[in-house]
């Protein structure tokens, strides 16, 4: 049996009141409550070490074969965090280390990888630790809903307290919450869009897929551990799945802890396991650039997890912190440090609607007349049939240049920009830039192939689309 053998958590001691973030007194609409904040000497790595130490309490550390570190807020762009954690934990020198990052779903990504590694027999005991201390703009809504914390699990093939029985995953491309290398703070698109088309849609799809695979129903779960972007949205997921939000959903601790990003679902799982009855089942669902869901089967060994320095222990240990300026000082911020970016760049909702044509490079083939066309249409260019198309992938077809221009005015960093209308094999016409080409090579009817490129970086984010290039 492979599963979770031990666990530990860490929540920083200080709790900042949400009203302090709002600027003093209770403003209309500002909830009461608090969030966990890392002290000035804490970050994602120190919290990871603390949670891991709690997880490994009572174990011979020489048994640890691997450390998987998961976070979106590790300070280095290049240099591994797992190796720092392994060194701080004084683990073996031949320990396997790897970092998981770039999505708040990376904590459960790491958990699954650890389970796969132990199942495959390449390791017997793997420590996974998820941790986050995400940067937010002063006085922003995200600053109020986020929290700092970490959770660690020891995944093993012996003495397991819980096994992961089934797994279903959805990969999704959406710009809902993001931070580029040059962004100081986490950014997000309009919350209703993020919740509806990002979180809710994907999470429900993942859970429904899991239920279909496992043959289980909502009533079979003692508790559902649901990632939630806020203190309300999980209820819509629970309702869609048929879970009773009051009794069957693990308390997401908004107003006490806050959304701890990559650590959030792992921390809620740790909290649920601390209270779980042996023999019961938990539903674990996490979100971020897609979603995933697992069935967690609790074993008799789970009672051993209750004595750890886990979530309950840390939630008891709290100190009120009311000095907002000091909190900003911890993070080297001032109240005036707002996000000064001009625009949000390309509309995330337009990107969302256009992703089949922009990212997958799909065109439409009319089922009535066979005409292929790009972009996706509702009414056929040729026979005017409505909504009677099959989506066809154009990216791996060849094409030919129907028309071209050399645009010196388009702001290319390497002018001129070669712009063409290409006819893709099958007849669709696409207005695309040509890349990796000298203007001298460009001529009518030149055969081209397609390549996925950055089309521009408006708004400070890379915006991807396909370009054509001479067929090689």
């Amino acid at each position: 049996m492979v599963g979770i053998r031990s666990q530990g958590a860490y929540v920083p001691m200080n709790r900042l009141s949400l009203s302090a973030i709002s600027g003093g007194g209770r403003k209309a609409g500002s909830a009461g409550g608090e969030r966990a904040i890392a002290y000035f000497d804490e970050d994602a790595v120190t919290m990871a070490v603390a949670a891991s130490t709690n997880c490994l309490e009572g174990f011979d550390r020489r048994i640890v074969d691997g450390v998987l570190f998961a976070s979106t807020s590790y300070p280095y762009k290049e240099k591994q965090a797992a190796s720092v954690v392994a060194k701080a934990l004084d683990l073996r020198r031949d320990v396997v280390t790897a970092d998981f990052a770039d999505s708040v779903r990376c904590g459960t990504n790491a958990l699954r990888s650890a389970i796969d590694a132990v199942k495959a027999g390449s390791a017997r005991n793997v420590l996974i630790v998820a941790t986050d201390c995400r940067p937010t703009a002063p006085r922003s809504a995200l600053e109020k809903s986020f929290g700092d914390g970490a959770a660690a699990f020891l995944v093993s093939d012996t003495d397991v307290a819980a096994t992961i029985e089934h797994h279903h995953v959805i990969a999704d491309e959406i710009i809902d919450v993001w931070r580029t290398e040059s962004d100081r703070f986490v950014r997000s698109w309009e919350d209703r869009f993020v919740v509806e088309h990002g979180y809710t849609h994907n999470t429900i799809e993942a859970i429904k897929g899991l239920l279909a695979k496992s043959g289980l129903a909502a009533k079979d779960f003692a508790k559902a551990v649901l990632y939630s972007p806020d203190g309300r949205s999980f209820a819509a997921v629970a309702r869609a799945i048929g879970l009773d939000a009051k009794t069957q959903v693990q308390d997401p601790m908004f107003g006490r802890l806050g959304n701890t990003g990559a650590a959030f679902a792992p921390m809620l799982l740790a909290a649920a396991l601390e209270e779980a009855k042996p023999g019961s089942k938990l539903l674990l669902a996490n979100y971020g650039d897609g979603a995933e869901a697992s069935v967690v089967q609790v074993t008799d060994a789970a009672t051993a997890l209750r004595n750890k320095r886990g979530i309950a222990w840390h939630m008891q240990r709290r100190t009120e912190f009311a000095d907002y300026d000091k909190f900003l000082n911890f993070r080297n911020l001032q109240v005036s440090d707002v996000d000064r970016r001009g625009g949000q760049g390309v509309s995330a909702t337009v990107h969302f609607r256009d992703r089949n044509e922009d990212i997958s490079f799909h065109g439409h083939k009319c089922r009535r007349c066979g005409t292929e066309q790009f972009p996706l249409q509702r009414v056929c260019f040729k026979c005017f049939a409505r909504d009677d198309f099959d989506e066809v992938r154009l990216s791996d077809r060849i094409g030919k240049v129907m028309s071209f221009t050399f645009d010196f005015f388009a702001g290319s960093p390497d002018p001129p920009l070669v712009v063409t209308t290409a006819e893709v094999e099958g007849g669709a016409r696409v207005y695309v830039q040509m890349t990796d080409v000298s203007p001298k090579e460009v001529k009518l009817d030149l055969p081209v192939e397609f390549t996925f490129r950055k089309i521009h970086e408006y708004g400070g984010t890379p915006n991807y689309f396909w370009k054509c290039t001479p067929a090689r």
Partner: protein
Amino acid sequence: MNADAIRDKVAIVGMGCCKFGENWDKSPEDMIVEAAFEAYEDAGIDRPQEQIEAVFCGAVYPSKGTAEVADALKLFGKPVSMTQNYCATGTDALRFGVFSIACGLYDTVLVVGFDKPKDRGVSGPSAVTTGVRGLPMTPAGWFSLCAARYFETYGAGREDLAKIAVKNHHNGTLAPKSMLKKEITVDDVLKAPIISWPFGLYDCCAQSDGAAVAVLTKRELAKKFRDDYVLFKAVTIALGPNPQADPSFDFLRWKPTVYAAQDAYKQAGITNPSKELDLAQVHDCFTLTELLTYEDLGLAEKGSAKDHIANGTFELTGELPVNTDGGLKTFGHPTGATGVRMLYENYKQLQNKAGARQVKNASLALSHNLGGAPQACGITIVGLP
């Protein structure tokens, strides 16, 4: 469709046009007032609040909308509406004004086309920033779409385009209200920096600020305003598919012009446009647009434009002068005003008031706009009674 519903029912009795250009020192209000009061004076209107029954506006660049016109002219207590149809915006505003009179609802209306793109602090049009594929975009890139294949098919080239720019620069020197007044040579055009091949700087029109205004009335009342009124023979708009996506696009013509011309000639009863028309103002946002328009309007056989350019057919002294006031190229292109400005020129030409650029014995004139990718074409045909 009743092709006779418009012809000869609506008269133009007054027109005004402010000086086009980079009008840094003028607000939209200033330009609208200048153009409108010239039109009032031309029509003999001294009580516009009583005599104007409705106002039709056209503007493309973000403005305060209808209130910008109503506030400027203090025209309250009457319908004021605004239309937008790419570069055919001004022509579409005229179209609604014509409809409102032809259907018998109003006697006298005002049409106001204006735009103030030069307050945005950038050259060229504003960028679309909503979709990934919307950038980078330049109209020069869009309108050059036909160049490579047209050149290869019919043996034309940049030299032919250059002659169009030279012609329009010359005509612009003769128009007092034009933006650019500078003679150029074919050599100047060919040596200018390339904007988007085959377009060099001189192949591209001058974006500018401006406003133009028309007073329209029903034919029966026209004599009360003036003897030398001008009548609408046709006014139309046609949309074509986006040439960047149209699977049947042939890169030799702009479909919207072909569609709109068919309709306009039917309304006006024209069967041989190159012979019947005396002059035309066509959309020369880029020189190739003017070249293709000669053919798409039937003023020249498809593929023959370069021969006509060589022979001077469309020059001021030629058989069928085109863009007698310098066109978008040198008169300027405040998008919403352009269609109305073209009508201003045709109106003055038909009244024999065009000064040094006067076309002899002109009695039937066409104006043409083409906008979008391009996708929208607007045409008016006006003539003497």
